[in-house]
Structure formats: structure tokens, C-alpha cells
């Protein structure tokens, strides 16, 4: 059983469109991180959210941590080809120090 479920698995959109990626769990996380991974590279941290209900913005990216700290979403406004990549959410369960990763959402933004 996958602890963190990401949806959708694949997303192919045109430049300028908006999109939302979801990360859901039945477990409570002390914090949740979002990473982007480009082909042939390692994941790069985008944001960490720690407080239930927290919203963080990074330019055109908006991250939200659910009130119950069981889910998170990533919203991209006016997507650009440079946003193409694998988006991974990763959570740390309360009392644990390791990260559990979701299976990722592969995003392709076409010009």
C-alpha cells in the first residue's frame, strides 16, 4: 500500500494553462515537501510545509497543506515549458525522520 498517493500520474497540457497536482494520504504528516525532478537529474526541493492549512507561493506555484496534515496540493498558474518535469511529494510521519515519497506526477508542458 502506497502511503502517499499522487494524482494525476501524468499530465500533458499547453503553455498558459493552469493545473493542480494532488498528494493524499490517510496518515498524518509532521511536514510535507514538494520536489521537481528533471530527466537525468536528482530531485530538487521546491517547498516545505509544516502547518496545517499553510499556503506557500513560489512565483507561479502555490502549495497548500491540508488542515489535517494528511494531504497537499500544488497549483501552477500559466504553465510554461520550463515547468516540465516529475513532481514528487514527500512526507515525514510524526516521530519519524525519514521521508516517504509519492510516486510522482509527470508534467509535460508543450509550447
Amino acid at each position: 500500500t502506497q502511503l502517499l498517493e499522487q494524482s494525476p500520474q501524468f499530465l500533458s497540457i499547453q503553455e498558459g494553462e493552469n493545473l493542480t497536482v494532488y498528494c493524499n494520504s490517510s496518515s498524518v504528516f509532521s511536514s510535507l515537501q514538494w520536489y521537481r525532478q528533471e530527466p537525468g537529474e536528482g530531485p530538487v526541493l521546491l517547498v516545505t510545509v509544516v502547518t496545517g492549512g499553510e499556503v506557500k507561493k513560489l512565483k507561479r506555484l502555490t502549495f497548500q497543506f491540508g488542515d489535517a496534515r494528511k494531504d497537499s496540493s500544488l497549483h501552477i498558474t500559466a504553465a510554461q515549458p520550463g515547468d516540465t518535469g516529475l513532481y514528487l511529494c514527500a512526507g515525514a510521519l510524526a516521530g519519524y525522520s525519514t521521508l516517504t515519497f509519492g510516486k510522482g506526477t509527470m508534467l509535460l508542458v508543450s509550447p
Partner: protein
Amino acid sequence: DTAVSQTPKYLVTQMGNDKSIKCEQNLGHDTMYWYKQDSKKFLKIMFSYNNKELIINETVPNRFSPKSPDKAHLNLHINSLELGDSAVYFCASSQEFSGSTDTQYFGPGTRLTVL
């Protein structure tokens, strides 16, 4: 300057062979990790070292033996390679041993193919 580096980038070998992957970080971090990413892009932690000491071993077969000669290096040796070991292996580091909020910096990965 590369923060976390791994060698080799690609590794192709026969079943049954023994191979090593090297990792170095120049960030001055205390904690280093090895992750395995399978063909479906699922990233799973294998080991975590803090100040050269093994902290976490996530039920990885004992054919895998990490070695940390100093805080800046964490190498991964794999004995008797099997087909299922084919994957991309990522090394990462963080300042402290705290997966909850600390930023982990990942290396570029080593693509291992076992034939």
C-alpha cells in the same frame, strides 16, 4: 561547483558481479542518504548515515553495504548483483538528521543496469 556528486553516472554489468557507487558532498552536511528509484520513478530510501554512523537501514538486502569513510563520503557497494537491482540510485545529504523539515540535496543519480 557540484554540491553532491556521484560516480559513475552509468553502470552496466552482468548478474552476479560486485560493483560500487561513490558519493561525495561538499556542503559540510552531517547526514547522507542512499535512495533507489525504480523504473516507475518510485523513490525509496535505503540507508541514512549521520556523522559516519548508520542510522537507518530500510530492510535492504545485505548484498548492499554502505561505507562512510568520512562525513563527506558515502559509498555503496553491491555484491552479487541481480536483475532487480537495476534502477537509478541517488545519493543525498542534509545538514541535520531530520527528514521532517531539513532540505535534502540530491546527487545526479547513477543508472545501474544489470544484464
